[in-house]
């Protein structure tokens, strides 16, 4: 290093500006606002695993697991929900509890609807919950007595009218902190078919329409309330989510508006929870398939 470099380094060390209080305070505030770290990635890993191990899981849930679970709570009484034809019952409950770990998984089943759609949902729910049970026991084995963790799975019938049926499965995983995500299932009762978000629209461009509307709402919310944060280009906190996929979670609210739900951490920090955006029915009316127009009217 030459003399000039040494001179600059010496001066740099002497003159290095201290962090002003305004910046220091901002850093501390940001750190304070961070959610506790937890296995965000876990959820992403679980779902593909489900697809990859279907046959194995079906076998395990039907024959093996009820016998080897530490506690196996037998199927609960039928719990009728709404609607004359379709009802949802808890067919199985997986339960485990010790000082450090809890698991409580209710497995719902759609009954009274002898359709392929209901069969499909029942199978999918069964596979997903089985995967979660397996995951719980695997984590239990890995952490032994060193960690804490819980797994709660609950469900709710969001819609059950003559026209439409929506079942919401909620998964709450808690390790160092919590992670929540949902899976929504829909049956178009008129056609007796499973409906996913992409099925509702006449065009693949539906994603652009929804993304643009959601971004607009995010921006409005962030402008109105400083405590609201989303990972957007606009906020500088991350990249905009670019698409809403054809199987993204949604439901119809009481107004007939389309509600898009994001999982925790998907579009914002953990403090934002699981953000929901109601898309006014007028925004999607033009791109909605004719057979679904009566759902929003």
């Amino acid at each position, binding site marked *: 290093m030459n003399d000039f470099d040494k001179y600059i380094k010496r001066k740099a060390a002497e003159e290095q500006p201290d962090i002003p209080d*305004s910046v220091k305070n901002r850093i501390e505030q940001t750190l304070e606002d*961070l959610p506790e770290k937890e296995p965000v990635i876990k959820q992403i890993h679980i779902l593909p695993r489900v697809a990859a191990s279907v046959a194995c899981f079906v076998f395990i849930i039907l024959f093996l697991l009820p016998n080897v679970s530490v506690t196996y709570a037998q199927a609960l009484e039928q719990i009728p929900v709404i609607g004359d034809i379709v009802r949802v019952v808890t067919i199985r409950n997986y339960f485990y509890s010790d000082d450090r770990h809890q698991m409580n998984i209710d497995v719902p089943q759609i009954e009274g609807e002898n359709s392929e759609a209901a069969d499909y949902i029942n199978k999918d729910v069964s596979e997903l919950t089985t995967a979660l049970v397996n995951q719980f026991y695997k984590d239990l084995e890995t952490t032994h007595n060193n960690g804490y963790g819980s797994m709660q799975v609950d469900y709710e019938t969001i819609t059950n009218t003559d026209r439409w049926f929506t079942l919401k499965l909620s998964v709450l995983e808690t390790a*160092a902190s919590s992670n929540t995500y949902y899976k929504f299932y829909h049956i178009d009762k008129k056609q007796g078919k499973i409906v996913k978000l992409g099925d509702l629209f006449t065009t693949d461009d539906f994603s652009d329409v929804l993304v643009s509307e959601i971004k607009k709402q995010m921006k409005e919310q962030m402008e109105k309330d400083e405590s609201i944060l989303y990972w957007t280009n606009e906020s*500088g906190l991350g990249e905009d989510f670019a698409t809403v996929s054809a199987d993204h979670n949604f439901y119809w609210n009481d107004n007939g508006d389309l509600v898009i739900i994001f999982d925790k951490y998907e579009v914002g920090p953990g403090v934002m929870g699981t953000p929901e955006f109601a898309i006014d029915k007028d925004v999607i009316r033009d791109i909605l398939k004719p057979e679904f127009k009566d759902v929003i009217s």
Partner: protein
Amino acid sequence: MDYKSDGFTDRGGMILTDKDAFCEHIRLCEKSMYSLALSIVRNDSDAGEIISESIYRAYKNLDTLKNENSFKPWILRIVHNTAVEMIRKNSKIISMGETPDIPDDSSENDITTRLTVFEAVNCLKQPYRTVVVLFYYENLSVSKIAQITNTNMGAVKKQLSRARNMLREILKEDFNA
């Protein structure tokens, strides 16, 4: 931004897993983060915003950092990228390609108080300010600077060499004094 290909994922160190440890690492690096952000945007308000956003981004992508020994260059790269993005998006902030504010010969003669080195660095245009801050203030190696600023070592060496000449010109009276 692809954090997965950041080059800081070499194995062998501890893995950061909880918030407290993350916060501790941020506090250890905050001065460096501030210097870097300030070198790019040149005002405290924007620097604070960039650091805050970088912390969120880093925390969100913490699982991509496999070795906590690489935390500092990793977080500085996020700060750098965040700052560059902000500048590109926000026309109110001074642009990357601005004309340098190096005093010309005529005005130099009028200067009665000597420039500090930091003021001199501030006179440089980009990317020279940033490489100077990382090299002289943060004592980072050329290869680390290349990783942080998404370029190669040859480019960093050239930038440093030019920056050195510019600084020498600006500070010649002080240096020779």
